[in-house]
């Protein structure tokens, strides 16, 4: 009983931290390299405990991120829902991939996310982005093994199933 509460708290905390990390600015030079934190954290939870993450939850987290980020209400909701759908569909296989394959899969997912974003932006009539806009998925994928190991270690220490 208590363990479940700790698990729920830990899950909410990681998602909340990822949302705040999305808002924290980096120095001007590093700005284009900022990974899409909420997607990475949600991906981790989708792979590790798939029954906790559903499409509805991804949608709600995305809506909240939209409220914070303020670009277009529903944009991140759509991106995160699509991302979670693919991740949950291939969950059983992704989980047993060796780390390097998993990293490649995450890269593909994040690139797909950027393409979705590009489509939305184009429809919204915004200017097409510069080359540096495409760096973020690669940084996200490069950070994935470390994030995964860190979160997994903490999860095991907290004994969350």
């Amino acid at each position, binding site marked *: 009983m208590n363990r479940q509460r700790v698990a729920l708290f830990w899950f909410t905390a990681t998602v909340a931290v990822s*949302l*705040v990390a*999305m*808002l*924290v*600015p*980096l120095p*001007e030079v590093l*700005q*284009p390299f*900022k990974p899409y934190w909420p997607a990475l954290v949600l991906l981790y939870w989708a792979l590790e405990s*798939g*029954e906790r993450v559903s*499409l*509805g939850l991804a*949608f709600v987290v*995305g*809506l909240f991120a*939209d*409220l*914070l*980020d*303020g*670009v*277009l*209400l*529903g*944009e991140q*909701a*759509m991106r995160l*829902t*699509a991302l979670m*759908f693919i991740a*949950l*569909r*291939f*969950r*059983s*296989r992704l989980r047993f991939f060796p780390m390097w394959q998993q990293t490649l899969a995450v890269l593909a997912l994040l690139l797909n996310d950027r393409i979705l974003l590009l489509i*939305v*932006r184009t429809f*919204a009539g*915004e*200017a*097409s*982005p*510069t080359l540096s*806009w495409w760096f*973020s998925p690669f940084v996200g994928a490069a950070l994935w093994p470390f994030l995964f190991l860190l979160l997994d270690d903490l999860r095991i220490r907290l004994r969350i*199933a």
Partner: protein
Amino acid sequence: MPLTREEPSPLFAGTVAGTLRLLTYLALAMVLMVLDHRNGWTWRVRYAAAVVVEPLYRLAGAPSAGLHALTVAFAERKTLTEENQRLREDLLLANAKLNRMAAVAEQNQRLKELLDTQRSLELNVQLARVIGVDLGPGEDRIMLGIGANSGIRVGQPVIDARGVMGQVVHVLPSTSVVMLVTDPAHAIPVTVERTGLRTIAYGTRDGSGLVLPDIPMAADVRAGDRLLTSGLGGRFPPGFPVGTISQVQPAATGMFLQASAKPAADLDRSEDVLLLHDQAEPAGPPAPAASVGPPADLAMPAGAASTAPAPRTGAAR
């Protein structure tokens, strides 16, 4: 552990129900996006949710504020003394200039009274602090630490010591968002200081500077020309520095000259900014601005002046 519980996603084939749910959510998100794009809902919803959202902004702004505090705390005494000295000199110089200007300003005031114009040289400003928050990639926006509770309204111009920074586009109870002049969606009516040519400066695609895409071929514009706000459109008061032209070349269409400009304001480094309160004319274009251009016999042909469509002044969003 995972083996004991039921596996919701089968190894190879997905369920139809899952796909249906995905489609429902995607459709919902698209409806939201279209509604938001048409009506600008996000900010109304966010205004309602400000109690939750604003502390998060403060929290996200804390690292950069802390970093700044650390820099100040660990800065060498010598550096600080030097900076202090420099600021004193600047202040002295500025005061000396002001004293000289005072007489001119008074004379200007009297002449303007004679001419029956309302515009004055006095500034009604409010100081605001910038919160370091990243508002999405490709968006040239900054967040300020004051909002509707301090009387901030959408459309107020924002300046720093060197020039125009942008305008307020969204207001929350105690924070507000400023669109910078370098945002691709921003346009500001300007006049070239040297010749009085009126045109419009847009933000560039990558948000690094300003671009003036429609200068007539015959116009006299050179690198190094200073750009001032022209006051057309009634949003920015006239006479504030906007930027300096860095290069001029024929546009891709060959019909116009295209100039790029460097913004005058310190867009990346400003920590404190000034918000201008509305001046004499609250909305709509002012009476034909006789005070900006050169004398009538030197003015550009009529076609040149009319390239500035007033409605584009606002944030196009």
